[in-house]
């Protein structure tokens, strides 16, 4: 509000107070008689006016009026204006100074009150924002806790599932190899199915357990320098235990290649890819497992000579929508889980994972692992 805007309320206040001052002086005149008191009463009026009106206008106006009043009504010569006496300019100036000072003080006080109100508003907003943030933080923490609980549960269940599966696998294998039991060919076939299926389930559970291991602490992956050829050899021999007719041509670079990795996890990736190649291509021969150094990466490639991957599957792989791969019946059973585990493991190593069809028609799954362990950036 400008200093010079007029307001009816303020004018009424000013007039009222001046009148009150005049009345008070008139009443007190016969009692005290001293001129000083009239001045003081008018000063009080001016102070109050300055305090309760907006801006300087009313205060200054009141000072002027007070001065005239004092001069005219309460000073010798009475009931007339006389400004010749030397004290008046000083009186007026003093009144004027008093009024302006009080006005200024009032304005300042008002400003400070406004500021205080503003600050309080700001503080309140900050407080609310802080609350909201800490609520969000709480939510994040809760979600993380839930993830942890879910992981632990998954791990416990998988662990518990492993024991009966081990006995199913073991018992069925024993019945098959136990030559003292006379079994019909059909019984042998049924037992073989039991054994194979339980072995497949065990592999799936191992995949699940690995996923819980990774998702619970993605940055705590412990990498050691491993010889690429050793991982390849182990993955192949593990897969051969399940598929004795497997023929894999494995090739590693002549120069020993050390790759920082978690050996069990990368072995799992290779096992999953090899099993995929066998199941998907429907063929246990002509599977190639290649390792080579490509710049800063060690690149592993598993290729088969099967039917290759359909456009649909390639698209799903690119988008990372691997769960929906389990729709095609037996040949794709477990492909989704197996491949998504591969992706998770490779990602946790800061590597890349790609799938494509080779020129000879089969599928090629390729993943690269960084050879240097630079500071890993959080994704």
């Amino acid at each position, binding site marked *: 509000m400008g200093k010079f805007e007029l307001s009816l309320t303020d004018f009424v206040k000013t007039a009222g107070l001046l009148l009150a001052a005049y009345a008070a002086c008139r009443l007190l005149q016969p009692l005290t008689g001293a001129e000083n008191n009239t001045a003081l009463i008018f000063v009080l009026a001016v102070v109050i006016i300055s305090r309760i009106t907006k801006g300087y206008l009313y205060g200054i106006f009141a000072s002027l009026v007070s001065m005239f009043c004092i001069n005219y009504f309460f000073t010798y010569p009475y009931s007339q204006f006389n400004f010749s006496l030397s004290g008046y300019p000083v009186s007026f100036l003093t009144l004027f100074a008093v009024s302006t000072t009080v006005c200024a003080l009032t304005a300042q006080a008002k400003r400070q009150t406004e500021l205080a109100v503003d600050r309080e508003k700001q503080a309140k907003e900050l407080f609310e924002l802080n609350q909201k943030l800490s609520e969000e933080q709480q939510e994040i923490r809760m979600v993380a806790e839930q993830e942890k609980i879910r992981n632990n549960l998954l791990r416990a269940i998988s662990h518990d599932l492993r024991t009966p599966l081990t*006995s199913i696998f073991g018992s069925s294998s*024993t019945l098959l190899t136990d030559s003292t039991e006379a079994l019909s060919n059909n019984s042998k076939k049924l037992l073989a199915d039991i054994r194979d299926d339980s072995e497949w389930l065990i592999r799936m559970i191992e995949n699940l357990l690995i996923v819980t291991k990774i998702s619970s602490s993605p940055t705590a992956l412990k990498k050691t320098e491993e*010889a690429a050829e050793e991982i390849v*050899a*182990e993955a192949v021999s593990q897969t051969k235990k399940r598929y004795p007719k497997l023929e894999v041509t*494995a090739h590693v670079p002549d120069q*020993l290649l050390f790759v920082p990795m978690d050996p069990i996890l990368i072995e799992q990736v290779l096992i999953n890819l090899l099993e995929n190649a066998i199941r998907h291509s429907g063929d246990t021969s002509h599977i190639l*497992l290649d390792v080579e150094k490509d710049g800063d990466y060690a690149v592993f490639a598993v290729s088969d000579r099967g039917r290759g991957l359909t456009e649909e599957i390639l698209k799903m792989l690119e988008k990372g929508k691997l769960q929906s791969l389990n729709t095609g019946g037996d040949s794709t059973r477990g492909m989704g889980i197996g491949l998504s585990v591969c992706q998770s493991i490779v990602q946790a190593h800061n590597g890349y994972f790609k799938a494509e069809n080779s020129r000879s028609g089969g599928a090629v799954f390729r993943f690269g692992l960084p050879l240097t362990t630079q500071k890993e950036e959080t994704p």
Partner: protein
Amino acid sequence: MSSKRTILVVEDEASICNFITTILHSNGYTAVVAGSASQAKSMISSYCPDLILLDLGLPDMDGLDFLSSVRQWCHTPIIVVSARTHESEKVQALDLGADDYITKPFGISELTARIRTALRHADQVVSSAGVPASRFSAGDLMVDLDKRLVTVAGKEIHFTQIEFKIIALLCQHAGKVLTYDYILKQIWGPYAVNDNQILRVNMANIRRKLEENPASPKYILTELGVGYRMLENQ
């Protein structure tokens, strides 16, 4: 008539016990079962088994604790049964004195092979009173420890001193797994640095000289996260 060997199976899961004892019986062993660590301890004293199959997931005591306490007074060969992805557990067991391990789910032939190897090594120690055999052969590989000669299908292969020492060590324990640490300490001494890179590099060089394809080795097998194993002589 040779007496049957006795194998103590320390396993609390009844169903797993069943098929293991069936396998053992069909392979000519006598099997006795202990369902807990305390039961096992008393059975070791009373049966004096030739071999112990120890599952590391026992109900009343940590399998590794049991192993270390048993090893203080008993030198019977012990094979621990572990799960896949429990590599550090396997290494610890081997360091605490286990002779070998087998991973669930295990194949029948794998189990019987490991048992045979462990028993054979125990016998060798007893019969030759600690003097190692001078010749070793497995498949096309032939190693003459006295003459420091290695041939594959009759063709001689040259190795460095360190490389030969490693091969000799593996041959002496053929069929058994040797941890990285164990090999490091045996070859490079008890104060060897714990970084096993130097061992890996040596193994890679050995593999390239010995095997047709280093990516599919026939003789020296890798046990990921644990160590190495030499093919057993047949």
